[in-house]
């Protein structure tokens, strides 16, 4: 709204620029994204802005989305796999108000998907962009909180700290006790946080056809996995990576392959399992 390059948002919020951010800020963010794409898995610092939504609620993802979205895009926003959780609704409304773009709940209709904690079950295709909201971009932060140190470790590809942590899990529990935000090695070079997705989703990142962008607003970092890039979940030869399995099926669509949420149905221990990906589940129900 402050310079000559402004574009007007089409409908409800004419007082703000298209997708809220001013064009110079978008350009700054796009440059960071380009650098991130050029160095897969590397965390690029960027001048994260104070958004009208709280830090920790998706400001990084929102800034990335705002910088890459165009008037012809179709946007899907999910949180925990669902389009209908309040935070997903809120972010979708934000872009409806500020960018007036088309929104959808259908994974295959979306050109741009912003997500928190899940990757859709339906495989993504070329041309799609998926934007992850990232709370803690530094995978080693809980092992070494000083950024000056972790930066050096990444520079030297010195990842012993992380391997020792995983080894200690095995020594103590007999298996790796990390179930979400499970660290990955990107393009055989950088260890990266996949964001707090369940490890169930990690294999989907490997050689994905879509562009995967990661925005951490509070920590002011952007990173990326370009299409067709190797993403390997850390493991040991004798303790290979495994994903979660359920010995039940989705109570609504009968899927045996999706990530299931457990829902408590009464106060006597009754529970049922349903797909976390609401669009996937609905589509399967519609087919029947």
């Amino acid at each position, binding site marked *: 709204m402050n310079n000559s390059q402004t574009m007007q948002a089409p409908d409800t919020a004419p007082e703000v620029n298209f997708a809220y951010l001013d064009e110079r800020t978008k350009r700054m963010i796009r440059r960071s994204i380009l650098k991130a794409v050029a160095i897969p898995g590397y965390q690029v610092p960027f001048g994260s802005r104070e958004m009208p939504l709280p830090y920790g609620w998706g400001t990084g993802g929102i800034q990335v989305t705002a910088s890459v979205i165009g008037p012809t895009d179709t946007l899907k926003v999910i949180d925990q796999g669902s389009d209908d959780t309040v935070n997903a*609704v809120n972010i979708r409304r934000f872009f409806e108000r500020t960018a007036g773009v088309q929104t959808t709940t259908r994974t295959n209709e979306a050109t741009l998907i912003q997500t928190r904690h899940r990757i859709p079950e339906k495989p993504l295709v070329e041309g799609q962009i998926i934007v992850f909201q990232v709370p803690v971009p530094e995978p080693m932060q809980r092992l070494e909180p000083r950024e000056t140190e972790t930066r050096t470790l990444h520079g030297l590809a010195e990842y012993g700290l992380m391997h020792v942590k995983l080894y200690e899990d095995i020594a103590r529990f007999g298996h790796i006790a990390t179930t979400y935000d499970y660290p990955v090695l990107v393009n055989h070079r950088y260890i990266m946080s996949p964001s707090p997705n369940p490890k169930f989703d990690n294999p989907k990142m490997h050689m994905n056809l879509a562009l995967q962008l990661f925005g951490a607003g509070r920590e002011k970092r952007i990173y990326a996995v370009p299409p067709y890039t190797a993403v390997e979940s850390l493991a040991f030869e004798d303790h290979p990576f495994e994903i979660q399995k359920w010995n039940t099926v989705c109570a609504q669509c009968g899927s045996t392959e999706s990530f299931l949420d457990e829902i408590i149905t009464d106060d006597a221990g009754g529970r049922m399992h349903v797909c976390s990906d609401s669009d996937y589940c609905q589509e399967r129900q519609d087919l029947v």
Partner: protein
Amino acid sequence: MYVAVKGGEAAILNSYKLLEAQRRGDPSLPELTVDQIRQQLKLSVDRVMTEGSVYDPELAALAIKQASGDLIEAIFLLRAYRATLPRLGNTCAIDTSSMQLMRRISATFKDLPGGQVLGPTYDYTQRLLDFTLLANAQEGNSHPPQPSEKPSASLEHESFPRVIDLLNQENLIETFECPLDDPLPKDLTREPLRFPADRATRLQNIARGDEGFLLAMAYSTQRGYSHSHPFVGEVRLGEVAIEIEPEELGFAISIGDIEITECEMVNQFAGSKTEPPKFTRGYGLAFGHSERKAMAMSLVDRALRAEELGETIESPAQMQEFVLSHSDSLEASGFVQHLKLPHYVDFQSELELVRKMRANQHHSDASDSLDNKSQGPS
């Protein structure tokens, strides 16, 4: 029976209405005006301006009203507004020795040029609830003091040399040369914070930092976590001119006055092999009347200079990454409160893991009663 989690949008819209009703309170009472907040809740307005990084009492008062008096929420509103404002230019460095003083105290000298001026302060009020305020408010007839009763707060004086400058005459205190060309400091609202951060960047960070956090960090330095023998060189409150120097003009012009609180903390330094013992400094500056903030800031600033002064870094207040990464109320409040967001998926993953670990433990207990650790993952 399972009810699909839908209707998020309707819930949000209803929540807006409930929030509005809560903010307004009893509609039979007159609504608070932004001007009333600005005039009568000045110290709240000052804090919101300081941590919101915008000097605009009217917008700060509006933010306080909109946030139902939640100052951190008000700071958030002001910051989000500020984020999209254009940068029209840079002001010249302010000169606090020529400020219009309303209050100025020094704990290091009994008297000094310009004198000690108590000014408005809660310091020597005896903290007894004043029930006349309650009665007056109920009658709605509070009497403003007549002009003749009102003591003149501002002091007519040419300039008030700073205590630091007085100490400097004896070379007893460290001084700083203005670097060549006076480079602009990094703008933390435009560029990310990187470590190690220079002092200008650190000061910028803690100037925006949460008062409560800085107060606690400052307090910790007084309780043995990096003691720095502090004395209040001076605390001053007053108005200072803001000047800009437009390129086409070639000289500075005043664009208005702002009220600020400045604190210079004087700290002992034992000296080193290369330097004789002298006093070192910690600096604090805040918009409006914000003494607690300015003093806490100056103690934290001094503690953060540990590396530069060759002190051992062993306490949280001396650790740049610890202090600067956690000082911002928006970042802290957002991330702590994001735990309210759904975490079904992560929790499901943890549930599955805990059940698996318990099953394993049960199994191994049954077989050989090994002493298995039951501690969960970090």
